[in-house]
């Protein structure tokens, strides 16, 4: 299947065409949601087909990177000269690390569009921007040329800036500009690192493989440490790692629900993906030298994020801080430099994408139906909205790592690999598991169960709507599916990670 068909580009192009169509709707903007949904649905179906082909007939279309030690084994590889005078080539392709993220992107985009079904404020811009965001994220997860990667990386900022700034909460201006500038500065550190790698490699190509190949002999240790520091900062702010996380709670609290879902579900993953795709394999000696820094930052993010959750009154802010904690596990997994740890890190990215989408959607439901997300004002909502509170409970349980749900497998493996590398230092991150259970249960108890609240008018509170329930339901089904059969994703990630690890000279 797909032989000779530029399927990855077609999938990236789908939302772009969709966005153009929605922007051109003019007076018929009430149909924007239909246009957006259909184009993102096509992209979703195609990407799932790609994943199936990848699984059923591995290597059948594999071209691209093969050599003695083997860089990545990319399938659906496409390459076209773009800016010849600067050595820039449009290259896209998918491997076991990129593919799960790619599919996650089309999935969450489609579900977010469905979730926003009753958006009345400027719908054509809203859905158009969501599609452009999808284009950017898809490009990041599939491009194999640094310049192209960076272009997609930056494209993501603009729609998110507008989504927060136009459709956001009361403090949206501040949050939007803070998000834009904070993450833009991080991107620029990344840009300088990319330029430095390009010139140091001296092959007049921005292709990831070319630079990687040349870098094996051209990159000195000092250069690697400096460049790794810059890329790590660039990706780490997106991740986000403590102490560069402060843009995240503001952005989340103000963003509309679908914006939060895409921000936490996809944009944060870009940071983790960059570390494992760019920073570690291309600059292994730099990564080695800064391994302990990565680990310390990871553990700090895990603990600090979790502790801050305990103090939150706003349900959504709590979920935002919990993202910092859970993305810390991704970084911790990578920092171990073990097969298990890196696989677990990638798997945790996927798992967190599913789970956090549920959590933010449920925060959105509470806000939408009750008019507030402040935990002290809520209470006893399970009587008024039984389905919603069940879904929220499942989401919380999944996020705190209940066995059988997807996060458990991921976090368990991260912790196991941590034990392999640093033995008893494991006690530090494992504290967070208890804290996590604490803040989720406590929040659940105060908002959903117990006596009915008197602080808000609950007369008109009704249960979850179909367009809100359907996406959450689909996500919960997937959370359970991949929780029980994590191998469905592992088998993609595992071989790709073996190659990354080969580059590190370990195993």
């Amino acid at each position: 299947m797909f032989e000779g068909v530029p399927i990855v580009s077609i999938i990236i192009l789908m939302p772009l065409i969709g966005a153009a169509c929605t922007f051109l709707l003019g007076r018929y903007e009430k149909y924007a949601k239909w246009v957006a949904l259909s184009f993102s649905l096509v992209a979703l179906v195609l990407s799932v087909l790609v994943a199936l082909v990848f699984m059923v007939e591995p290597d059948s279309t594999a071209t691209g990177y093969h050599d003695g030690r083997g860089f990545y084994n990319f399938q659906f590889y496409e390459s076209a000269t773009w800016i010849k005078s600067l050595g820039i080539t449009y290259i896209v392709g998918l491997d076991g690390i990129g593919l799960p993220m790619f599919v996650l992107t089309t999935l969450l985009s489609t579900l977010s569009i469905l979730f926003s079904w009753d958006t009345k404020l400027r719908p054509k811009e809203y859905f158009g921007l969501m599609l452009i965001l999808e284009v950017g994220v898809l490009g990041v997860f599939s491009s194999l040329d640094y310049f192209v990667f960076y272009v997609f990386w930056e494209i993501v900022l603009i729609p998110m800036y507008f989504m927060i700034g136009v459709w956001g909460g009361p403090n949206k201006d501040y949050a939007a500009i803070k998000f834009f500038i904070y993450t833009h500065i991080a991107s620029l550190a990344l840009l300088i690192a990319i330029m430095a790698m390009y010139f140091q490699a001296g092959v007049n190509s921005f292709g990831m493989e070319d630079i990687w190949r040349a870098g094996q002999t051209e990159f000195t240790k000092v250069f690697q440490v400096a460049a790794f520091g810059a890329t790590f900062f660039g990706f780490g702010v997106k991740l986000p790692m403590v102490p560069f996380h402060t843009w995240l709670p503001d952005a989340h609290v103000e963003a509309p629900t679908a914006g939060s879902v895409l921000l936490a579900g996809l944009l944060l993953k870009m940071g983790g993906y960059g570390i494992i795709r760019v920073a570690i394999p291309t600059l292994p000696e730099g990564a080695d030298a800064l391994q302990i820094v990565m680990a310390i930052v990871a553990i700090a993010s895990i603990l600090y994020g979790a502790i801050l959750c305990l103090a939150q009154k706003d349900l959504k802010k709590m979920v935002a801080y919990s993202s910092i904690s859970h993305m810390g596990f991704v970084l911790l997994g990578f920092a171990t430099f073990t097969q298990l740890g890196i696989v677990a890190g990638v798997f945790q990215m996927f798992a967190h994408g599913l789970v956090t989408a549920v959590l933010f959607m449920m925060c959105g439901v509470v806000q939408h139906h009750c008019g507030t997300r402040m935990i002290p004002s809520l209470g006893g909502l399970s009587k008024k909205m039984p389905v919603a509170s069940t879904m929220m409970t499942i989401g919380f349980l999944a996020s705190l790592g209940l066995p059988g749900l997807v996060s458990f497998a991921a976090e368990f493996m991260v912790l196991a690999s941590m034990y392999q590398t640093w033995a008893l230092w494991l006690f530090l991150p494992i504290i967070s598991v208890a804290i996590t259970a604490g803040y989720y249960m406590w929040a659940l108890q105060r908002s959903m169960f117990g006596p009915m609240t008197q602080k808000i008018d609950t007369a008109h509170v009704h249960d979850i709507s179909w367009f809100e329930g359907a996406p959450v339901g689909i996500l919960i089904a997937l959370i359970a599916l991949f929780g029980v059969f994590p191998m469905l994703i592992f088998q993609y990630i595992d071989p790709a990670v073996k190659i990354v690890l080969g580059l590190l000279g370990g195993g």
Partner: protein
Amino acid sequence: MSVWNYLDVLTPQLLLIVFALLMPALDYIFKDKRVISMMALAPLVAVAAALISWIFLDIWTPPESQISLIDLDIFAGLFMLVFVSVGIVVVLGSPEFIKNDKNQGEYYALILLAITGMTIVAESTDLIALFVGLEIAGISSFALSGFRKTEKRSAEAATKYFIVGGFSSALTLFAISLLYGVGGTTNIASIGSILTTSTAPWIIDSHPVVLLAAVMLMAGIGFKIAMVPFHMWAPDVYEGAPTPISGLLAAASKKMGFAAFFKIFLVAIIVTKTDWEEAVAVLAILTMIVGNLIAVSQTNIKRMLAYSSIAQAGYILIALPVATQYAVAGGIFHIITHAFMKSGAFMVVAAMGAVAVGEKLEDFKGLSKRSPFLAFSMTLFLLSLAGIPPLAGFSSKFVLFSSAVEASFIDGQGWMIWLAVAGVLNSALSLYYYARVIKNMYMEKGPSEKVRVPPMLGAAISVAVIMVVAIGIYPDAVVTACRHAGETFSGLVSGWP
């Protein structure tokens, strides 16, 4: 050598001058003033078409120069293309703005003359020709910035510009005389060669006279490009001048200053580079910082664009201390993209002014509802100025900053990485005030009545939008041309790095 040899090379200038002289006469003949603006457009479009067919399409080659004062090489060609393109945008944007003026013929004549002067600077191979070009463009610009005679701000702008411009001309001329004293010639490339090969003691001994000339040029031409600390006039003049003329000053006049800067610093006195490179580097960084920091606090959009234009000059200045072929290419590339982004942005402001909406930042509130076209175009220009891909400003900043990164790998030049870092941090800073305008347009509530965009202005803005997007998505042709222009420099002087 016959007179025809002169005519061959000078055809673009002659074309522009003849039309410029015709303008006042046409003003008497035609009642419909749109005809005049069309006639002003004609020579610009002709020159632009010729240059494009040469540089990008390769279907025509300009004649070899037979005279020693000017030469049309690819460096000159690209700069001339910038000037005539900005000229096209400005002329298209003007009719609505000056429709009630009595002297429209003179207005267009002055625009054409200013552009003639700029093209002479770009083509000059001789310091005298360069100075003549600077003056032709300068004097026309002074008159243009004071064109709305009855308006106080416009008169103030013209006076200020005139005094500062006269002073800077004097400094430039004095520096030129010093260079002539050292080299015994006014030919730019010859001065470079003489400095490289001469054994005269006063030249070997760290070129004190040349350095004095360099300092004076930094001040003299530094005024033209609004380099800190010689930038103070720019915001007042840009604010006071008729808005299309502000676009001309920011997008073209300033680029003429860069053409002169590149010619003198990178050809004539390139061998003394190690003596002035650090000074220029510091001034470049200061120019970025001062421009951006003051832009943040502006409430008038024309002043904000003026300060942002100062900051952009700081980015372009990176090319001088780095002084590699690639850096020159980056400098020229950013000059090209900046010409379109800046003139486009000023045309949007002109459109707002022409329909009496206003020039304050708050007048942009809710613009996306009132005129989606203006708001969207402005957003593209501002994002491109901030260097967000895939717009033109990103590509050019990418080449420019990466040239500094490349140079920093050479031993003893490690500090040049700070030029790139400063450029990058300043780009992030500039995003703050650009984003605020975008925020006003899309996220704030404003009056609801529609803004009617005059058709010619709409066309001007569309031209700039198309260029910003097209160069951003497919920069290859322009980058290649810019790299060729960078290469021409190394061919002129034997000691070129």
